[in-house]
């Protein structure tokens, strides 16, 4: 490992100053569960580590008028301990809970999971399905970016020089909403998704689907928001035909590669299987959710 400097700024401004400042190759450090592994395996050798965990904004979970706001460096365990967030966003929590082991979740953040830009990252599909919006701040000010636009390709995100994700807003949803995420891994845990599918949907009083978003992980260079799949459910009672159409749309959107983690054929097939299974769970949760705003 290199002679790496470590800084832990207490404000976003200071972090941006350090991050965008000068010629030093800096890296942002949240939980470090991706970053430190990459450093140990000689993939990267940053000259400067900027720890984001001392910035209060990045550690807060807050209920705002528009929805829940979670700091980008909030750890998985912090989210798991937040009852309000867990009951409102069970689908997102499906993803968060799957990240590594309990020890890993004690550190791992949703922000890091998203910014690391792995197409197989587990919290990303449910965050996309939830319609989460990232607040990104950089030397030129702040901008709002939908989560689906952050990942670009394995290990590459769309953030500009000096930009930091500060928080995510998960917008309020109507009563009758529910979400779910499932992944397929050969092992029960400590594994990486071969395919992951998330859905978030809303049923109106008549039981008709008024809103649905579907995101699929590990089947392309980034996590995909599959609009056709969501559309297949909207206006239906989310029964056989609709879910068949959803499955077809999900499979059609997949463009995986054959690799050590799964064959193309297998991934496409299982993406459809999981889509059907997550919709069933989301539907159950939607029917059981009266308490949402």
């Amino acid at each position, binding site marked *: *490992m*290199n002679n790496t400097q470590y800084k832990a700024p207490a404000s976003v401004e200071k972090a941006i100053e350090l991050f965008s400042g000068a010629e030093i190759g800096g890296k942002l450090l949240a939980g470090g569960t991706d970053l430190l592994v990459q450093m140990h*395996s*000689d993939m990267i050798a940053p000259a400067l580590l900027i720890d984001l965990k001392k910035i209060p904004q990045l550690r807060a979970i807050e209920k705002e008028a528009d929805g829940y706001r979670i700091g980008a460096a909030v750890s998985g365990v912090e989210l798991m301990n937040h009852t309000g967030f867990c009951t409102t966003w069970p689908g997102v929590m499906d993803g968060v809970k799957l990240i590594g082991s309990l020890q890993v979740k004690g550190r791992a953040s949703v922000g890091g999971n998203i910014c690391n830009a792995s197409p197989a990252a587990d919290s990303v599909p449910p965050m996309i399905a939830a319609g989460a919006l990232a607040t990104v701040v950089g030397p030129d000010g702040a901008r709002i970016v939908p989560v689906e636009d952050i990942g670009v390709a394995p290990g590459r995100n769309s953030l500009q020089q000096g930009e930091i994700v500060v928080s995510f807003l998960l917008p309020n949803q109507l009563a009758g909403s529910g979400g779910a995420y499932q992944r*397929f891994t*050969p*092992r*029960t*845990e*400590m*594994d*990486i998704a*071969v395919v992951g599918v998330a859905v978030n949907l809303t049923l109106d009083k008549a039981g008709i689907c008024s809103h649905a978003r579907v995101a699929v992980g590990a089947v392309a260079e980034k996590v995909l928001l599959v609009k056709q799949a969501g559309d297949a459910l909207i206006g239906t009672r989310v029964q056989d035909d609709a879910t068949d159409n959803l499955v077809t749309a999900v499979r059609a959107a997949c463009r995986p590669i054959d*690799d*050590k*983690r*799964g*064959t193309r*054929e*297998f991934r496409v*097939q*299982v993406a459809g*299987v999981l889509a059907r299974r997550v919709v069933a769970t989301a539907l159950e949760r939607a029917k059981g959710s009266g308490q949402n705003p």
Partner: protein
Amino acid sequence: MATGPSPWVTSFDYEEKDLKVIGKNPADRSDALEKVTGRARFAADYNLPGQLVGCVLRSPHAHARVLSIDTSAAESLPGVKAVVTRDDFPDLQSEVAAAGELMVNYRDVTRNIMAREKVFYDGHAVAAVAATDRRTAKQALKLIRVDYDVLPHVIDVVEAMQPDAPLLHENQFTAGITPKPDRPSNIATQMTSKLGDVVTGFKQADLVIEREFNTKPIHQGYIEPHACVANYTSGGGGSAEVWASTQGHFVFQAQIAKVLQMDISKVRVNPAELGGGFGGKNTVYLEPLAVLLSKKSGAPVKMKMDRNEVLRATGPTSGTNTKVKIGVTKDGKITAAQAELNYQSGAFPGSALALATMTVFTRYDLKNVLVVGHDVTCNRPKVAAYRAPGAPMIAFAVESVMDELAEGLGMDPIDLRLLNAASEGTKTHMGGTLDRIGYVETLEAAKAHEHLKTPLGPNQGRGIATGYWFTLGNETSGTLNISTDGTAAFIYGTVDVAGGSRTVFAQMIAEELGIALDKVRVIQSDTSSLGFNFTTAGSRGTAAGGTVAVKTCRDAIVRMCEIAARIWDVDVEQVSWKDGHAVPAGANVGEFEPLSVADLAKQASWYGGTIAGHAELNVAGGGPGFGAHLVDVEVDRETGAVKVLRYSIIQDAGKAVFPDYVKAQFHGGAVQGIGMALNEEYIYNDKGIMENAGFLDYRIPVASDVPFIDTTIVEVPSPNHPYGVRGIGEVPIIPPLAAISNAIYDAVGVRMRDHPMSPPKVLKALSGT
């Protein structure tokens, strides 16, 4: 030198007696606290003042001629203290030596630790550097220029056997075929094992089933990567001290000496606490490099592999292709059994083929057997032993075919095995007959197991398979020192490969001497404190090591009886040993108070000196073990995922000295077998580069992948061990592949004959039905 089994071996007859310590679970396991608190010292925990860090440059090609190596830039990098390449190692001629359950050839050992003419696999060492720190060493590796002439490569065993396959060794002509072939081949050896006449046998059969199976190579997956510290001293003609992660410090000592052309006695190897080996730590990789770097630099050198290096460059087991054909009468009696075994040996010849060939069908009583095997070189790391080397793959084939036969006959699979079970006196196809064994008892216990009575749900199925493995004996030595306070210290020369040796030796010593268990301390030897010990392999730790522990006690007891005789002023024949005391041998000897070990130890100084016991034995092997596994699985028909719901192991341990630990060995073996069955495999890309060299993608099971494993210990004592012990460590890895495959068939009606039975493969098989 003579070959074959030596007639000069020692064993002690099993004696039935009341036991006080053996067979009970000690409350305090001597190694446990240190391990769970992180204080146990593994090889990488040893450090010497002023040590350098050694790193290895590894081949990025699967097969290439090494045209030149330029180390000048690396050598001039500040902080670099030594660089070694092939030029620093003497070439060695073909010479075969034992190194655990597999044999090694020194011609190849030296080429495996440091490539000479060619690199034979991705990860093959081509140079090593010692520098003041790891970063400098790594930087130096990047400055070494190696000129390669990349050659076509071959990984798969069947492809490697083809006449037009890329050839690894230009001078390799298949041994075991007469006349000698006129063209070189990747088939290093052809082997045959024969009993009776299969042609006649198959004619008597009413049902014959023949199937082909393929398994991928798999790694031992020990948690502790290879590591060592070496210090070379030039005084006195040159000597070296090494701390290593090894299953056989004496064998490492001999290998280091041979490869570096040193005197064996000038090399001292200290085995560290072992973080798993399973056969993969029977041969040297880093150690000679570290010694040589230390010699060149004049400083101690520490080396350790990372997981990537472990997976790319150290011994996995063979990938295999096997064909098994078995014929039965309509009553279920096997009339003939035949097998063809094709085993990858990796870069150099010498897979577990010989063991597999000899033991394919050994649990059955057969009249007609023919086994033909091939040991095949290919562009992968040279295979190493892995827990019952070669056996799980062949049991996969045999036990799957047995399952099909049972189905074809409409017979219970356990009954079919019982009908054909080997027992005392059964002639085996490896030659010789079996002693008292417990296969029938094991099968009967399986048949009576409650597991078989639980109902199964939809997509659930049950499988059974059995396995057999022998127990090695070999050179084993130990010393028992009785201190003046009557406590005992036993120095052993095997390696405590699974953590239980120290406790079981203490149990046997406490039992023999009649002293309390906590008055015995058991200490690992280095190579200077005892005579040569063979590698701890072939399930021999408790069996052979225990035989030596017992012999040292009996030796010390002779000495103690001598002391008692002097104290009492009687003839030594008039003293006998009973319940931990010297006692008068009969009423006519006189009235003497029994003397305890402590009493005798206290007076030893005057009456003849220190009490100790020694043993340097060539222990007899034997004591084979048999196991039966029952497994329930559930198959997800939509994803091909196989979930292990329930697992039961029934195995003959001969005598379980430390029952909880025997169970732990059953568990460990089965879990490795489950991992092998479901997800473990080496994945190579089209350039022959390993793609999954890490535990994220080389998928050994995690705790939640396996259910609680039920164990039944059967005890049919081995006749040639003083306490009836049989080797138990290897048998439990043998049946899982077949048991799981049979269970999958029972659940969803597809026969998996290609390993691993991973979700994509199972799903594909399901979509074909």
